[in-house]
């Protein structure tokens, strides 16, 4: 039952948390977390890490975690 928190670097490191009842794919967690703070940024535009590890959108998270989220891609 992981509790996953996202820390958004471009919004003053604002932290938002979601409680899941099962393991969750990074893509799903990022989508849910982004929805909580702003709708304009897509998951393709961000890079996520847990600690030093760079996350792939296909990684699965089963433990309580804090994901640091950095916005990188910002438009053409």
């Amino acid at each position, binding site marked *: 039952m992981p509790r996953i928190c996202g820390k958004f*670097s*471009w919004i*003053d490191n604002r932290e938002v948390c979601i409680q899941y009842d099962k393991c969750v794919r990074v893509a799903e967690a990022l989508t849910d977390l982004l929805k909580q703070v702003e709708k*304009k940024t*897509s*998951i*393709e535009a961000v*890079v996520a*890490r847990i600690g*030093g590890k*760079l996350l*792939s*959108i*296909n990684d699965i998270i089963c433990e309580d975690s804090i994901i640091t989220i*950095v*916005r*990188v*891609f*910002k*438009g*053409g």
Partner: protein
Amino acid sequence: MKGVWGRLLEVDLTAGTSRSIEIPEKVYRMFLGGRGLATYLLAREFREKWRFLDPLSPDNPLLFLTGPLTGYYPGVKLSVSGKSPQSNSVIGSVVSSEVAIELKASGFDGLVLKGGCEKPCYVYVENGKVEIRDASSIWGLGGLQLIKQFNSLLKEDVKADPKTPFVYIGPAGENKVRTAAVMAKLAHAAGYGGYGAVMGAKRVKAVAVKGYGSLPPVDDPESLNTLFRSALGNIKERMKRFRQWGTTEGTWHTGYYLSSMPVKNWSEEWHNVKDFSHVGFELETWVKNPWADWGCPVACMKLSIAKWKGEVFITDNPDYEMAAYLGSNLGVFSPRGAVVLSSLADELGLCGIQTGNVMGFAVELYEKGILTRDEVGYELKWGNVECLARLMKDIAYRRGIGEVLAEGTFRAARLLSEKKGVDLTKYAIQVKGIAVGAHGVRSGKDYPQPISYALSVQGGDHTSVAGFPVNSTESEAWYSILDSGVVCMFTVLDDSTLLEYLNKVTGWGLDLGEFYDIGRRIITLQRILLLIGGPDADWSVKDDDNPPRFYEPLPTGPYKGSALKREEVDELKKKYYAEMGWDEKGIPSEETLRRLGLEEFTPMLNMLH
């Protein structure tokens, strides 16, 4: 030295000679390469004399530079710099071109062109050996014809490898149009800065480079290889939609949802024309053939073909900026129309952003009766591709009204204001001589912040925006690092990954604070050169502002009524100056220069106080 060779190839076009210039490792560590290195070299060479350097004189050096990450990080970008004829400062402009790799494989980190040729010439570099050759037979050409004929000339004249990459200028550059770009391949452009005009002022039509050597050694090849593979996978995964649609997806997303796309010279920032979208381009003009440059895992480029008035027009997708500036900003909401105008800009060697901006300015003046039919010679109408194409050609060849518009939006507004006796600068959507990129700030939904353009050392450049936090991927320090690395903004991951990459290539062992200090150092030095300015325009604290139009409410769309608030911008300005270590006039303090290791440039501050 790891990741770089520690030397540049300097060519004196006037004397017809070349030499190698040694660059100490300390300089790379402080400025990386590309934009940062160019800023340092120019500041060191000209110092207080910068003010008197005419960007369109042969005295202005033109620098084609790589960086420590060139050849190792996915993708390939060449940095083009000098004193910009648009901003009178250094603009770090980049273009996708294999010239960057070939330079490094020649044993040099860059090429610096000084002086000028008496007659049209081209520069051919093979393994560091320079030839300055006659380019009379290709002078006047642009686009596909230039590419074909220059390839033949290279083969016949210098027996070059048929795959030798090159950068070139079109007719606009030859005519020293300030919105001219340095072009590569069919549709790649180093547009910001106006360096096509600088190349034209030197009478250099093209620069071709071939190197048969290896890249410089890196510090930790084994773990760099592992990091490369992981980065590559992550980039591919994240950029799937980009790979599928290219940047043109923004044509609908930025225009309809974010309401931050220029429409009719930014009088609006919203449209709801469904056909003017990536799907519209796909159905009407797009040949499904994604293409990429050396080592690029994204492949955002597409290919569009449009037939119009018996002619065939080819360009990339076009990308979002072109669809915006040569589409909606001119009232053109058809993919075919945008492709025709984008292809024409490529052919003429014009920057689509700067040129689309000044064209929008002209059409608005015409619509308001400020410019007349007698002055223009024909009618100017929003959305009329025929008259817009004519106007673009007049700019490239400096004909009629094109003579004034060829000076770019800032100078054209100034000249026409003087002529008409009214202030027309309020219709000029530019900051410090640089047209604002196609991402608005009024809706507050797109990525730029209220001070992004106002405080950028590259003016309206949407690829180098200022922002908070000042040590983050939202900041101009970040963008300046990308331009100095030199890496593409579409292939980067986060700052930690890029730093890890840099350390594995160079062995410098920098931490994140030192990493961002490189960016702060670059923009602080750029800021000093910007404020010194000259010879025909100067900037000061009052120019750290948005175009007046951005303070007017959006007239349409979901964010109707939204506008920048002057008090908020002023507050953010103060905060930004303080965080950057600049005084209340935006002048970097002596203490900041000391902290960043820029003490040698302290005397230049005297000119600013």
